[in-house]
């Protein structure tokens, strides 16, 4: 991922470490700095080997995904009901006149 463009907490990997940590980043007009707790000082963001996502974005993404999943599950429920209805209509036992069928199909569409 690219260098952070706004202040906040980010996933990041320090030089010499394989594990990801979280770092506080501050962005102003001239520079992007990352706080290094090991040295208790701010360092240039370019000292970080690899940048990950913004932590606040992760939390927002979870909310977004949960909402999308809820909507998708609602759509699946509606479509299953439509398939059930159409299957019932299509069965030989169902006595629907051609006119009634046309009305039902307009409703299904």
């Amino acid at each position, binding site marked *: 991922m690219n260098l952070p463009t706004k202040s906040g*907490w980010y996933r990041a990997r320090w030089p010499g470490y394989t594990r990801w*940590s*979280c770092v506080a980043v501050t962005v102003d007009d001239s520079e992007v700095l990352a706080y290094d707790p090991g040295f208790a000082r701010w360092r240039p963001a370019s000292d970080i080997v690899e940048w990950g996502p913004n*932590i606040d974005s992760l939390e927002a993404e*979870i909310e977004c995904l*949960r909402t999308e999943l809820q909507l*998708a*599950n609602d759509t699946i429920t509606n479509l299953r009901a439509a398939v059930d209805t159409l299957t019932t*209509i299509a069965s030989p036992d169902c006595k629907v006149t051609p006119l009634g069928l046309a009305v039902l*199909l307009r409703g299904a569409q």
Partner: protein
Amino acid sequence: MTPRDKLRASLRANSEHVRQWPAWLRAAISTAEVFAPNQKGTEGNGNMNRLKIGDCVRISDYAHIYTIQRFIGACAVVLDAFGNALELPIVRMTLVEGNMSTVKSHVTVGSYLIPSKTGWHRARWPGYSTWACVLVTVTGAEASVYDPGTSRWRPLTDILEWGASIEDTEAEIECLRTELRLANDAITNLRAAVDTLTTILDEVAR
């Protein structure tokens, strides 16, 4: 195995599980000051008269939600979202509005709000309104949080408020993405089925 035997087995397993908790976690759970006050009712027997079998409850300030199965004196046997039974004190319970399905999203928090494993967690330090990320280390009975301000490790109770584990959050995102992808595939298939059936019936109608 009868339902009663299953419940007994589950309770035994849970007791064993609690015995394996690190000392700091058991200490935190038994320390009244770490618990939020009940949202409804005050304390003591207030809950006894209010709660009934089938109610959904939270245990103090934990994110987990349980369903009450039966009462045993001052405790209630509750089931968690995965069907595990636990015997917990009624006085610590807070009634949750809705039912297990409407509140299910809260159950996705995988661990107690007090961290029980090493890793990065969201946390709020005393005197700060913004959330930070802190490194927690859990080794045997010892658990501490690193304070970069003072460059030293401090007890977990020094944190004002705990949030989710960052690793758990990332794992949940992956899980939700997969579920969403599967749901979208199902929608595509169902739409194709609706189209096919509509076409067939359209022909019949003509």
